[in-house]
């Protein structure tokens, strides 16, 4: 599992292995200031990063 949240330090304290900071607190995987096609491109690259995190073995909480 990879967790995308603004509160990444709390996730680390709880022991989550794979953590990503995402965008902002109110829209962790959104970029509303961008036009729709650019926002989708950004989101795809964020998800790609998430999948790479999933493929990465970890022993301790890691912020990607």
């Amino acid at each position, binding site marked *: 599992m990879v967790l995308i949240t603004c509160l*990444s330090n*709390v996730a680390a304290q709880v022991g989550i292995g794979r953590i990503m*900071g995402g965008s902002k*607190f109110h829209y962790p995987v959104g970029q509303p200031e961008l036009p729709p096609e650019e926002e989708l491109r950004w989101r795809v690259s964020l998800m790609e990063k998430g999948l790479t995190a999933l493929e990465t073995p970890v022993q301790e909480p890691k912020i990607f």
Partner: protein
Amino acid sequence: MELELVDYALEELRWGERTALNGKSLSISVADLEKQIEGLSHGIRIDYRLARPGESTRIVHVLDTVLPIAKSSGSSLTFPGFDGPAELVGTGRTTRITNLLVTVAGRFPHPELMTPIEKPREGIIDMAGVGAPYSYGSDYFHLVLSLTADSSVSNASFDQSLRPIALRCARFLAQAEKTGGEPERNTVALNQVEERLPKVVLLYQVQSQLACARTFYYGEEVSRTLPTFVHPAEFFDGALVSGNYKSERKIPTSLHCNNPFIAELLERHGKAMNFLGVILSRGYNDSFEQKRKMGLWVARLARNLGADGAVALMEGTGNGTVDFMQTVKACEDEGIKTVAVLHESNGPKGYERPLVDHPKEADSMISRGNVSEKIYIPPLATVIGGADIDLHLKATHDPRLPFLFDPTIFFGSYGKMGSSGFRAVYQN
């Protein structure tokens, strides 16, 4: 900078033909109040009620409380920025009625148009009984303004109206004609003290996040601003006003204005320490990086002021705790010894981890108690401000019946639990 406080206190509160303070007895004329707020309350009906400490009275749907304070010298107004152009405050002379609150209660006209996070939370004040030690304001007299807006009033308009209505009434009461009886006089100043005394700042983190969860400084939202230095005297003059309706965890306007942490540090100034003043910061920043930076900026400002130590308090919970802890960490990293005050969320049966976020640097915590513990709350004889209690959007409750609930139902309870001396401990 020096502020002279001229303090009156009540022993009696009643309605009367005129608004006047005779000794310790205040009579209030509704006609006088209506005249004060003429033009401010379009579309809003106001029911005026009184409440006194120790009475079996429950005030519901409380949005804010305001202390009667008025300048009695100079041209500035208390609560700058809400009635004409703002002027600097914190000097000259201010008249106060120290144990009276103008209490605004009511419901927004269009809750269905609000996102869940904007919706005001229920906050009740129990003037007696089990709930009193949890209810901010239970030890004050109250002029309750119970507001009902008709459907032509928008939420924004209601929000923007209730503040000036309450602030005007508060100023007006402080300026009431006074006869018989001498006020107490005090001075708020940060006089020069011995060099050897440790220098201490108060770190004051407010919530100013979105509509219905805002804090104003000289009438401007404290949002996305850098932390700033505020002289304690400015607090006494109402420089900070609350627009935050997260009732149990907000700092009411009257508490900004009459804050026991500021009072305690002023009391100890020159004796055990050198109180440098207050650093005002904003919590609930919306990325981890911003939270971390807010902490760094607070720490750097404290260091630039020459602080050796800090007492830290915050408004809110959850998300805002992360900004708070980043501030504590950053101060400790800058060599500023920090004590942080916080409530605990140990769960109804006490098993849960106390804090949302607890870095190792936060090694000197002061507890306000477990805010998730259930309390058996019997009814009180009189209910002011509404016909039901909103159990935080999950159900409504008839206030004439007892119920089991945690302190989050009480207005200003997180701060009040602290000043009531509650804390949490391990018990079997």
